């Protein structure tokens, strides 16, 4: 499975995503944002970091990067796209996911382990988790407070497009377990077609018990499994 890990100027988690894909048997490739073309690529990942220094707004400039002219059609034809942290912000700015991520409620950069509940397992990103499983993953961001208009929120909930929600140890989505003020404790969402996913926490940092958690492994395994043995950009969406 060939996974393009996109590096924008200022990306700083591209290396970590690369390692995570490699760890589960995928074939990661770094893609500099000016390098065009996604031929033969099975999945695209937009990493965390501070693309363009988060100047203007997080993700607001990266969406105009040359490679996004390839990522958008890739996503629109069903290719799996994952955005983590800054990558999630870029996907929202690019219109591939609804809503926006604003300053954390506490107005500070927040770095800690969080707990998330897996809300769906019939997706190419979560099929190796159990329904309702509570996972522990690090997060580190200043702008992770998910907001959308009422209509969008109703649609996200109604169509079951919230993929991860911040919860406490008992799996309850309480205000205390919400690290950034996100609406409805939303940590990660899917698009309607089910092939584009964005999340604020960093599953690629939860790949080894040595570093504190292995709860991110199933996410990368899910992606590899759902693409296993198949090539091309239009295989996904099949997860739904």
């Amino acid at each position: 499975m060939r996974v393009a890990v996109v590096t924008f100027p200022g990306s700083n988690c591209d290396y970590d995503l690369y390692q995570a894909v490699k760890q589960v048997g995928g074939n990661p490739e770094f893609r500099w944002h000016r390098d065009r073309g996604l031929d033969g690529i099975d999945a695209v990942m937009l990493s965390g970091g501070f693309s363009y220094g988060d100047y203007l707004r997080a993700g607001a400039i990266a969406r105009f990067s040359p490679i996004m002219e390839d990522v958008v059609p890739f996503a629109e034809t069903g290719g799996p796209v994952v955005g983590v942290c800054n990558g999630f912000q870029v996907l929202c700015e690019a219109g591939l996911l609804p809503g926006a991520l604003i300053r954390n409620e506490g107005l500070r950069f927040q770095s800690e382990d969080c707990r998330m509940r897996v809300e769906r397992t019939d997706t190419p990103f979560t099929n190796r988790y159990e329904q309702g499983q509570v996972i522990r993953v690090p997060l580190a961001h200043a702008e992770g407070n998910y907001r959308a208009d009422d209509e969008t929120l109703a649609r996200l909930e109604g169509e079951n497009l919230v993929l991860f929600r911040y919860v406490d140890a008992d799996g309850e989505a309480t205000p205390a377990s919400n690290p950034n003020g996100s609406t409805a404790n939303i940590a990660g969402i899917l698009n309607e077609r089910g092939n584009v996913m964005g999340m604020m926490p960093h599953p690629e940092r939860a790949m080894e018990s040595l570093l504190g958690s292995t709860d991110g492994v199933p996410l990368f395994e899910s992606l590899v499994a759902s693409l296993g043995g198949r090539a091309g950009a239009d295989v996904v969406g099949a997860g739904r």
Partner: protein
Amino acid sequence: MSDTTPQPDQPRALRPDHVDPRQGDPEITAEVVADHGLSPDEYERIERIMGRTPTFTELGVFSAMWSEHCGYKNSKPLLRLLPTEAPWVIQGPGENAGVIDIGDGYALAFKIESHNHPSAVEPYQGAATGVGGILRDIFTMGARPIAVLDSLRFGDLDTGRVRYLFGGVVKGIGDYGNCVGIPNIGGEVHFDRGYEGNPIVNAMCLGLMRHDDLITGVAEGVGNPLMAVGARTGRDGIHGATFASEELSETDDVESRPMVQVGDPFTEKLLLEASLELIKSGHIVGIQDMGAAGLTSSATEMASRSGTGVEIDAALVPVREKGMTPYEILLSESQERMLVVAKVGHEAEVQKILEKWELEAEVIGRVTDDGMFRVTENGTTVCEIPGMPLVDGCPTYQREGVESPEIAALRDTELPEADEPARDLAEAWVDLFDSPNLGSRRWIYNQYDTTVRTGTVIPPGSDAGVVRIRGTRRAVAATTDCNGRYVYLSPKQGAVIAVAEAARNLVCTGALPTAITNNLNFGSPLKPHIYHQMKEAVTGMAEACSFFETPVTGGNVSLFNETDGVAIYPTPVVGMVGVVADIDHVTRMAFRDPGDVILQLGDNTNELGGSEYLYHFHDLVAGPPPSVDLFLERSLQQAVLAAIRTGTVKSAHDCAEGGLAIALAECAVGGETPVGVDVTLKDSISAVPLLFGEAQGRIILSCAPDDADDLVELIREYSVPVRRIGTVTDADAGLSIALRDREVRVATEDVLTSRANALPRRMDAPVAASADEAHE
């Protein structure tokens, strides 16, 4: 006072030519000289070197290079006392950073640097650019930064001003490091009125490289082009090096602001990637950060290391605004800039790499063979100085140090009745955790990305931070340490303790202490009692480093940390690194399982001087600091490492500020799942020093009951005192210490709450409080 500098030889040809004063530049008067921080004697020496009156530009160059910050004129003779060599040292002092071998073909570059003065004036940018500067020192060696630490000191958190400084510094460090993507793995912060006017902001960075990737800041190869790389040069930070070498006054926070640089971590990230790519490309021979004293120091130091000269055309330097004079261009401290010496004919390749990273690289001069630092402006020479005396001819001063009688008296003060029968010790135990010095540091490190780069094995909040080396079984550990109160009360002993504590912190994680970088933060060396502190502290540090075989591979000196004549506590910060030979040996501080045996290594003493207990309850910084026995410390380090390598040690924690009771409680509540402790202490020592005294040379271990006998036996082989003091219990059972005459018991929850709230209750509530102050 004696001037100990060898008079610079003046080899034949090294007289600079006549240079006409540049139109519009001020005339050189005694006043102008004084404004540049140069003494009449120093100016006279400049005239001797030049054989004529220097131009305004030349005077500015001398002023920067002969500042304490660049020239170490008050500290160089003392720095020579420090041990700098060991078989594993690849690069000692004198380069951008020290480098040591850590095995498996890898080398570690590391260094600490201060940004105290700018942070006192503008905490956010001051701290942010401090991080930026130390990152550049590391990646200019060819190493990829893998971790940062920060060593901070502030006044008490009870004024809005100190809270503003503290909050701004933490945010500045966080925003910069987070954006570049370097994990913060630890450090330390102390709050004490001794730092009221002058906060200390020292940032340390570790970088990893293969041995082959090492590059240094040299300007070799006559005819090779000098290239300015990265951000453009602006008018910010002009004379930052000179500013950092002076005392602050009340008005400085307004007037000195233009001397503070402004950081752009996004450009830094691009510069980092571009520099590492450049170094690997083979197109360059040398690279150096344009840090303190900017283009001047980078160009002259690089030439000095290679015995060459350089010629720069100031008009070719890419600038941010029109009309900048050579003086401004040479002395600007604009951030995120590098000076690169490329191989002649490879300029286009260098530019191509920089362009990929959306940065600029322009040829601004070349390496020459005449040893001169020559600057032209559109073909006219505006500065011509012999490089050698400029870099190495800075006068150095060795002064007479005399201990302050007031401080000596404080050390000999009769301390309050040690036993304090009236005090409720359980209450005191919980209350001490409400001290900003003992409370949880979570409020700080929750603002730092600690896990980016997926290498952090032990994040902040423990004895030391640990980062694994991917693809090997190894890890590196790092810590910063210095208790300024101890150094204040007894400079030499305090410095020895700083080194010993750093080493204890490292061995507790399973690392062998390997080398140090130091940051010597002091007041004005012109005052005999401050010079005494410096001399004694460096002597103590040298002694301990020699004893532990942890050479000093570089560092930073920050003097004149005074406001209105009041100096900070002498604070020689030790940044120590160690190597964990096998990742399986990484050990954490927290107790794990109820039923485990608690072992104490080292002896309790009846010492209370310099303790947090005295400061917190009696508002007192007095008494002799705890005694320290280097021989015992080294045996302790060896014993703990041997114990950890058996694989049976389940936790290890240094016993430091706050004493044994605090250390035990930290072990109980410092992990993911809090536990309780049931401890018995039979020492014939008064309760207060026994619980809260800060005796050195103590480490707390825990292990499964079946392993305890073997561990005790092993530790005794190292002639280290060791005893079972109790067992780990369930959190519900609370924390209990039985003394000879009473039992002290607290609820685990109470300790957790007190410790967790110490910083937030001051920093989060005060947002409103400061607003009130603003309205008054």
